């Protein structure tokens, strides 16, 4: 009786392991899926040589996205001196874009840089989200669905540009707040986002991303010495819809030059690849160890049975 039970138990146990393995294997079936950039995605090129820091884009964004009133009016330029933890202003739940001033040695005037969501081709926020709350639209915008978001804030960890912000102030309806390229109100209809339209200096140029890359390269070519010979965003994080041209090295205007030149997703595929391997090999390996480790007991058991029968 004892013997039978243990053998049956063994099979049942093995089955439970296999079932667990099959059920769980599905969870990562499309871990390796690749996400091609949309051919007609729109983009914006930000030319730092043209920006004068008028903050019109901030004001336009605030109005378009119906964000709360800011403590300082948009024509107050003292905000450029604000520092929190030694850092310049950043986006948060009340503002999707901010302009900051950078005094760069060797430049006769300060530089200004607008920041907002860069709308990556292969967004880290999207690929790290375990409830699929993000979508990259064919128009190029990275939009977010607050109805399924759990509030884990992994997207904020994953975004190499520190873009998604969280509505910490709400206990019952918190959500991620970030620039959505004015998707619902403008981009969907082919119109440029509010900030671009508001820019009086043509520092922001809107068009198809591919064309914007050409524009950028052409400006670099036509104005030797004026720009750093690189478009920030052409390859950063696998390429972004919003890109920057700068007269000074990008780290001087607060852009992180350590951001990898490939999608953030590539850093986790190595781990995701071991998942099927562990699911397949471990059950056999450890059941095998069990059989090996307990073989002496088993032999003893059999011998005892033989003796009893004899």
């Amino acid at each position, binding site marked *: 009786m004892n013997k039978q039970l243990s053998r049956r138990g063994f099979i049942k146990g093995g089955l439970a392991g296999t079932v667990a393995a099959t059920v769980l294997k599905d969870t990562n079936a*499309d871990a390796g899926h690749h996400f091609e950039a949309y051919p007609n995605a729109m983009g914006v090129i930000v030319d730092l040589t043209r920006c004068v820091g008028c903050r019109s884009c901030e004001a336009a964004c605030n109005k378009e996205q119906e964000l709360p009133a800011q403590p300082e009016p948009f024509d107050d330029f003292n905000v450029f001196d604000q520092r929190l933890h*030694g*850092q310049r202003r*950043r986006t948060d739940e009340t503002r999707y874009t901010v302009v900051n001033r950078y005094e760069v040695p060797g430049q006769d005037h300060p530089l200004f840089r607008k920041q907002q969501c860069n709308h990556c081709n292969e967004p*880290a926020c999207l690929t790290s989200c375990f409830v699929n709350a993000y979508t990259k639209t064919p128009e190029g915008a990275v939009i977010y669905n607050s109805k399924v978001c759990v509030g884990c804030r992994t997207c*904020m960890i994953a975004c190499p540009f520190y873009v998604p912000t969280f509505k910490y102030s709400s206990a019952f309806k918190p959500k991620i707040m970030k620039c959505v390229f004015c998707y619902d109100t403008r981009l969907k209809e082919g119109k440029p986002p509010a900030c671009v339209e508001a820019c009086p200096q043509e520092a922001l140029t809107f068009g198809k991303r591919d064309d914007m890359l050409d524009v950028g390269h052409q400006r670099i070519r036509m104005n030797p010495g004026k720009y750093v010979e690189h478009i920030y965003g052409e390859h950063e994080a696998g390429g972004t819809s919003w890109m920057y041209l700068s007269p000074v090295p990008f780290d001087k205007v607060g852009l992180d030059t350590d951001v990898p030149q490939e999608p953030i997703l590539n850093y986790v595929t190595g781990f995701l690849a071991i*998942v099927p391997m562990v699911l397949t090999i*471990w059950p056999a390996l*450890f*059941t095998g160890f069990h059989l090996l480790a307990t073989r002496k007991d088993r032999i003893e058991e059999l011998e005892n049975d033989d003796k009893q029968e004899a």
Partner: protein
Amino acid sequence: MKKFSTSNPAIPIVDLVKPDGSSWTLKEKLWLGLTPQQYKEQFFRNWINWMMVGIFAIGIPIIIQRYIFGLEAVTHASNDYPWGLFLGFGLFGMVPLSASGFMLGTTVEIFGRKDFLPIERLALLNGLLGYFFAVLFLEVDLGMPWRLPYPMFISLGPAAVLFLVAWHVATYLSVQIAELVPAFCEWYGWLKGKRWIKSIVLGLTVSGIILSTLHQGALGALFNYAPAKIHPLWISAEFQWIHFFCSSIFAGLSMVIVSSTLVIWTMQWRVDDRFRDSLDRITLGLGKGCSYAMITYLVIKIIAIAHDQEWAYLLTGWGQYYLLELGVAVVLPMFMFAIGVKNHWVGIVRIAALISAVGIIWNRLNTSMIAYNWKLYPEIPHWKEVWICITLYSLYFLTYRFILYRLPIVYEWKGEK
């Protein structure tokens, strides 16, 4: 407890029936066979309980505040540091310390090392509670805690590392509950349930190994999402998951040593001779496992530095801090384990276990908070955030003790099994 057990030979309860032949009722079992008066007396004699009362008196209102006014009310609401202590300590720290369940499950059930049987259930309980409370910490941290099942059923993002963590932790929680059902069945007197679990124990244990390998690793792989934000010494794209997995092995074993030490020091009335007499031998065995896991970990940590060409970083201030972590939290306890095991010095193994358990939390905090955003500014958590962590950890402690007092975890059930 000692006082009551000398006056009443029937307690502590180890059997379904009293010495006079009648059965213990559930209520009596919950009261540990004491009268409510006696129970109150022993509860308030213990200074730890007074400390807990103090912690909860401040902690519970803060937790309520968090659920009414949002995370902003109790944390710095940082957009630069989206994950604070709740996850850094509660999830990334508690989960490796709970690897004990699958470690001892494997040792006893798979490798057939019956000599570790007396500590198996303590390791399983340590695992179960650690995971359960990691989920509670998560529930404090999540913006929308009521949506916890969303990644399972409502909206699936299967290509995300966190998706794997969610599924595996949930499944593994069920596995661990199942593994502890026998202890509950004996105590409750429902033997059918126990027999059923016994028949699938091998399958449960193997699933435990699979799930643990993957989600302990996945917690490390989560940081791969921030390759440019974490100091290069604490992040290694290729090795991160294996660092987290390997360190969880000695973390889990160390935590069982710490926990069993507390049991043997403070719960003499509850343990039986089998546990008492074998604990020193078992502690040395676990210590040996720890020292092996630690040398492996140390080697792969060094290989990661070599692989990523990061030697130059070791000469910077961050590098020295890194070496301090490795020296104090890994090399020191590793030698203490080795020396303790070689000379049969149980005391030194126990101190090493405490160092390595605290060291793991230190490592996870270094990865998730201190070396995170190393190019920006350091984040010092809000005091309320710290207090909530202490409160939840105290609740963990109380639950742990509540179960140890009752279920046959550190003693063998005398009654029908």
